[in-house]
């Protein structure tokens, strides 16, 4: 008989939905652990935290966090979250999804949510592949890497996601790996406290598909690689942080305070309409 042990962050997870769907060694769960610890650290009011996911392995996160959560459509979690965030000025809305979901099919929504500086936190777990559908190439798959749809190696240029988000107007941009759990947790704390569009790219192993196909060993090997290749450069110019063989630039790249979408809207309307302006407060 196996004894079921409890875990310190059980209250933040939907334990009635365990076991989760993630493979052994998958980094998504590690990132979720960091996320629950960040929530705990911030002593957040769980009635005012909403998690929205798109589709994919990481897209299942919304289903395991024990707060009001939505599992929406592929790539569009950001747009759903925009409506939710605008309607809940007192809440923190978190979009938790993968690289394919956020940077490929959701790319247009990503750049515009960042541009608008919508008050939300985006956690993008980048494992260089589409896990749920069997390991296809994504915009972040490294050069020459094998994927089920690049059987002869990837030949496309890859996204430097932090640079994309920073250039689009994101006001908090960081990158960590699931090896750097303490730093990642701290970054999540900062991102959750940040008013406006905060974005964390989390590099993470997909041992089942990406790593096996590319003969990269077990999850632990990628963790070792993350450790060895990590170069921490807080405040780095995001144009220089593209992921290159042998060098993984990590850190908090952008952290500026600019008016959020709601703040800009209210300022504009007050100026234009004066007393006649009635702020949008959602349903309260």
């Amino acid at each position, binding site marked *: 008989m196996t004894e079921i042990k409890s875990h310190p962050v059980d209250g933040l997870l939907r334990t*009635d939905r365990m076991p989760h769907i993630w493979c052994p060694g998958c980094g998504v769960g590690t990132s979720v652990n960091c996320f629950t610890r960040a929530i705990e650290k911030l002593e957040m009011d769980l*009635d005012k935290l909403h998690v929205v996911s798109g589709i994919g392995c990481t897209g299942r996160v919304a289903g395991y966090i024990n707060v009001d959560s*939505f599992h929406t459509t592929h790539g569009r979690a950001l747009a759903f979250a925009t409506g*939710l965030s*605008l309607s809940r000025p007192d809440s923190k809305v978190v979009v938790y999804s993968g690289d394919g979901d956020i940077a490929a099919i959701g790319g247009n929504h990503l750049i515009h949510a960042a541009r608008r500086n919508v008050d939300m936190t985006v956690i993008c777990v980048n494992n260089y592949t589409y896990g749920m559908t069997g390991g296809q190439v994504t915009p972040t798959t490294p050069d020459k890497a094998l994927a089920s749809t690049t059987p002869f190696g990837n030949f496309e240029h890859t996204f430097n996601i932090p640079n994309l988000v920073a250039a689009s107007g994101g006001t908090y941009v960081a990158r960590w790996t699931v090896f750097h759990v303490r730093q990642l947790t701290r970054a999540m704390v900062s991102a959750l406290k940040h008013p406006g569009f905060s974005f964390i790219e989390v590099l993470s192993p997909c041992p089942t598909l990406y790593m096996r196909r590319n003969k990269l060993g077990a999850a632990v090997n990628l963790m070792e690689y993350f450790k060895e290749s990590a170069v921490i450069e807080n405040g780095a110019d995001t144009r220089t942080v593209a992921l290159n063989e042998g060098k993984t630039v990590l850190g908090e790249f952008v952290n500026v305070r600019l008016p959020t979408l709601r703040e800009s809207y209210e300022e504009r309307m007050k100026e234009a309409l004066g007393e*006649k302006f*009635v702020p949008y407060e959602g349903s309260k």
Partner: protein
Amino acid sequence: MAKSKPIVDTGIHFIDGNMACAEGAIAAGCRFVSGYPITPSTEVVEHMAKRFPEIGGMFIQMEDELAASICFQGAVWSGVKGMTVTSGPGFSLMMEHVGLAAALETPSVFVDVQRAGPSTGLPTAPAQQDMMQARWGSHGDYEIIALSPSSPQECFDYIVTCFNLSEKYRCPVFFMMDETVGHMHGKVKIPDASQIDVLERQNTTRPPGEYQPYKIYEGSVPEMVKVGMGHRIHITGLTHDEQGYPAMNADAQQTLVKRLCSKITDNVDDISIIKTENIDDSDVVVISYGITSRIAEYAVNTTREQGINAGTAQLVTIWPFNDRAMMEIASKTKNIIVAEMNLGQIVNEVRRAVGNAVPVHFLGNAGGRTISPELMIGKIREVTR
């Protein structure tokens, strides 16, 4: 500075259908609209953009219709009433989130000011070519509700009905306008707010732990909820159980999808609005909807003056299709003409519903122009000869 307009702009106005639609939505309690510009629907959102900041609502122009059709659903789950507005090409993009709204049971209103397609087609020219897309456009089995207005006044009146139905049945509700109705000016009477029947959002009163978001406690529709009430809801587009949790098996699929459909199909009589005139013992009834009903009214009145025993049936509600009402019309007339600005969509529904009871004739075009009264008068004469 001039004073703000009241929330419900009571009075007699001379406005177009698009503006009447916007005012009706406001009167129905809509406070969040996400849209993307597309002719001939844009005036609806332009009007919202102007009105909302003074009445505590918000309009946001999104990056595309994919975003516009889900952004407002995020607002709806926060507890407000929301909608999106578009036309043909944008309607095509929105289909993904029509399916989402059906699966999540988001009370949601989609306005489609129809223009001639396919593809970019003939912008600014009217059509009624999206009627089947409204019904079947997203993948999978599901049911929706669709209404179609024939005048600016009906744009006001029936968008309110759309919102009420979306609250009652928690499904995508389509307001199938067309370019002509959208841009046609007419007298619109906006009643006093107290005289407008508005169904407010009913959130569950069950406490956390005693509530499941997709359980049927009463009737055929689950009780709505919003974020922040302590229920820790999980809402997913995956096939789900009563708790809202993914349920990846065929039995759960059967249960959920059948319920999503039956909550609409079991309530056709409650949902359906069909206006008939002079159908008893008639020689012909013209069945139509939207702007085509205005033309039918004129054509039928003209031919009646010429001694032809003709009647009209205006389908205000198109979906769910009211087979029984069609049978009733068939039992009272000798001929049916279905007139619509497409090459034959709703006519096939009518034929399916009435079978061989009476001949069902078709009068349509490929969009781009309304059906002329002369053509319709000619058709009425032809079938009653």
